[in-house]
């Protein structure tokens, strides 16, 4: 179950997944590239990029780390009635509802401090909060599916789940942000 701690074994466990995920991230870069003009013209949107995809990835990775340890310790069951699973899912959505309004206001405020925003505060808030809530729900789905898949495939969740979840959330973060920008800006 556990990978031995040698450069060779860690690389063998990590590198194939890492290269695959890198390609996925290049895909998310291409989505970003497709609205590069908007991002360069509206600095508050560019400021939103790392924090939105980072927070989405964090929501997923906190959940994944908790589920992964519960799994290692043998205290997790994959039933929708499992209180640990449900409680963690609810907490993820609440965390998004708490953080994304601050993210939107912060991105707008910092841009206003360092230059011109070219967008209303309400527009940036609308983009960040809508993106955040969608991302929280997506993060829960992706994390639960990935942890369950690792369990079924007998892979170490530490090696597989967190990277898969964080990267999927990154890509979803860029796509959701792109859609929100198309919708509200």
């Amino acid at each position: 179950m556990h990978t031995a701690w040698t450069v060779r074994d860690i690389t063998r466990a990590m590198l194939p997944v890492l290269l695959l995920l890198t390609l996925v991230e290049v895909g998310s870069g291409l989505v970003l590239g497709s609205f590069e003009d908007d991002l360069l013209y509206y600095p508050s949107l560019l400021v939103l990029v790392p924090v939105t995809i980072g927070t989405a990835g964090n929501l997923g990775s906190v959940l994944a780390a908790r589920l992964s340890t519960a799994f290692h310790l043998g205290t997790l069951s994959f039933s929708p009635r499992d209180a640990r699973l449900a409680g963690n899912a609810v907490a993820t959505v609440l965390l998004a509802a708490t953080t994304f309004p601050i993210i939107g206001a912060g991105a707008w405020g910092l841009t206003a401090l360092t230059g011109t925003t070219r967008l209303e505060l309400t527009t940036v808030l609308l983009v960040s909060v809508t993106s955040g809530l969608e991302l929280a729900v997506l993060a829960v789905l992706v994390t639960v599916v990935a942890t369950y898949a690792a369990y079924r495939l007998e892979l170490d969740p530490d090696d597989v789940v967190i990277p898969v979840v964080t990267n999927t959330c990154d890509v979803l973060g860029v796509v959701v942000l792109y859609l929100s920008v198309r919708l509200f800006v």
Partner: protein
Amino acid sequence: MSVREEAVDAYREALPALSASLVGGLLAGVVLGGMRAELGGVEGLLVLVPALLATRGNVYGSLGARIATALHQGFVEPSVGLADERLRAAVAASLANGLLASLFAATAVFAVLTLLGGSPSLPSLLGIAFVAGLLSGVALTVVVISVVFAGYRRGYDPDTLVGPLVTTTGDVFGVLFLLIAVRIVVGLGGG
């Protein structure tokens, strides 16, 4: 525990680290916002950004998670530092894999953009990916090991620390060292 108790527990444990990472993410965004000239000047740089930032999170997140689980199981002591042979192997593997993935990302961005009819510079993208990967890798190794060990000794759950810690410092260091790498590579005439 009930669903409500589990939710309150998870929320309380995650909020401080998530708030710290939010501040880090905004800082990274401000640096990225200040890089608009470079982003407009080096073709493919913006496309490369998610892959480079994610590589930091992937490689050093996995390093942190590995150490966290080992601490939970009592299989690594939180005070050995780099004297421990297994820990040294884990660090060496992280640096090597991080650099390989960064160079791979630069090559992939070059290939895709060239196929799409662009004309990015392969030496520039490779140079930027290598310098940024090396500098941020060393910085992240130091941060991950010291914070996870210090947190564990003070009674924090290393699992809750690792994810946000790595994405925060990964984003800030990632963007900061990316800016430094771009300046170095463009300064050397590669841009």
